[in-house]
């Protein structure tokens, strides 16, 4: 009996995975072919990108400040506080900036995409769109995907910048020379780190949108179903971001 149960669960898992990849490929192939739904794309860029600015700034600011604070305490006994800027920068740019901003966006934008699409499904708006001759993947998914592929790296860059500035605020409060703080940044960074800082959020943006759309379009069961789907999106997207971050980091280290 338990083997039957696991077999069934495994089957459901692989079928979901298959439909996720199929949907992702369809959405990706539609990026460069018309119609582009420019208005929809701009609206999504505004909602997902500009709308998330405040929350990622807040996340970046406090992450940078707390990292600087901890670093000062750890490095002071070794008289190495001049490296604080570099430490904050390398940690934020390579790891925490992309991951934290992506987690925030997964909660804010991913949940809203799933709720929006899920509601459209249960109120038959998606069916109505199909009957009206719309390619729903192009209109509902690709426009969101394009917006997030552009917005996510920009948001991560903003998070990094704000975090480094937050670290500077704390460092200056502890009488660490501003010059030393800023000069230590390039000492710790390489050009490849900047590529990593952009590549990761692009991939996270892709994951967030595709998971949110995949879950949203499969909603059933009315308002409760929408609620369950939103929860699923946030959980799955967050876990996927953290897991994929490890593997992307491994990949970058392998090609270092």
């Amino acid at each position, binding site marked *: 009996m338990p083997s039957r149960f696991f077999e069934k669960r495994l089957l459901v898992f692989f079928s979901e995975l298959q439909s996720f990849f199929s949907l992702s490929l369809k959405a990706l192939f539609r990026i460069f072919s018309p*119609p582009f739904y420019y208005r929809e794309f701009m609206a999504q860029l505004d909602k997902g990108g500009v709308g998330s600015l405040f929350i990622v700034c807040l996340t970046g600011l406090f992450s940078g400040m707390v990292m600087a604070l901890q670093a000062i305490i750890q490095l002071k006994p070794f008289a190495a506080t001049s490296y604080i800027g570099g430490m904050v920068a390398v940690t934020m740019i390579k790891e925490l900036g992309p991951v934290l901003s992506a987690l925030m966006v997964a909660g804010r934008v991913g949940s809203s995409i799933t709720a929006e699409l899920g509601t459209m*499904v*249960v*109120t*038959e*708006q*998606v*069916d*109505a*769109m*199909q*009957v*009206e*001759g*719309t*390619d*729903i*993947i192009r209109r509902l998914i690709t426009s969101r995907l394009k917006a997030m592929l552009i917005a996510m790296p920009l948001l991560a860059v903003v998070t990094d910048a704000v975090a480094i500035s937050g670290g500077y605020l704390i460092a200056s409060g502890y009488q660490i020379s501003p010059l030393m703080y800023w000069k230590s940044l390039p000492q710790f960074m390489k050009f490849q780190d900047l590529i990593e800082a952009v590549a990761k959020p692009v991939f996270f943006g892709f994951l967030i949108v595709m998971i949110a759309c995949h879950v949203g*379009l*499969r909603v*059933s*069961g*009315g308002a409760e*179903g929408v609620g369950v789907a939103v929860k699923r999106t946030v959980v799955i997207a967050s876990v996927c971001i953290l897991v994929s971050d490890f593997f992307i980091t491994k990949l970058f280290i392998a090609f270092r």
Partner: protein
Amino acid sequence: MSEKSCIVMDKVSYTVGGRSILRDFDLRLEQGENRTILGVSGVGKTTILKLILGLLKPSSGAIFIDGIDISGLSEKTLTQTRKKMAIVFQGGALFDSMTVGENVGYRLLEEGELSEAEIEAIVHEKLGFVGLEKAIDLYPAELSGGMKKRAAIARSLAADPEYIFFDEPTTGLDPIGVYNIQQLMIRLQGEGKTTLVVTHDMNTAFAVSNRFSFIHEARLVFEGSREELQLSAIASVREFFTPGEESLFRYVEAEGDHETER
């Protein structure tokens, strides 16, 4: 089964999660016909419309639209066939991020064959037909239930389809709203549109249709005129018209939400 100008469902079965929603269902809708499909709530009436529109794929059997079997068609080819059809969903299914005018002009804008001025003229004409010209800039959330249905009818008419389907068009409306919708449907029929209505509202069914089908337990059990329907000796049909003690609190498995294949 390949005659032109009609909709044919040939031994269509639809199963979801191991449960049969339709079994060997046959339907033939001639051009110009006004048919109502009757049956208790949850029996699978809406599923029939979604199958005809290609929103659901039949488990077995074939569906012909003007001689073309749509059951195996790709989404791209289906879009061409759907140009002949329109549907007024139960809740209207208006796009809530768009105004009423944008909703009505949506299909024409998507097709991209007409200029904005031409689309605007058609939108005004269709909204005039349903008496909603003044609501052109309102959002669906600002409309009453009856107005939403009328706006949905206007949207369905925008591309001048041959077949119009109505899913429970009068459910949840007050008597004036019901009368308005019935009159609109009759006017559409006067213009030669082929209509297929699914409802359990007998008043509407008799007002707008001249031929009836009745579904019971996933099967078509009756097909005929109003007189034949009223005189039918089929137990489920008789019970539908004059429910008695045996109908009380009977458990009927609803068709529920089906996962649409996309």
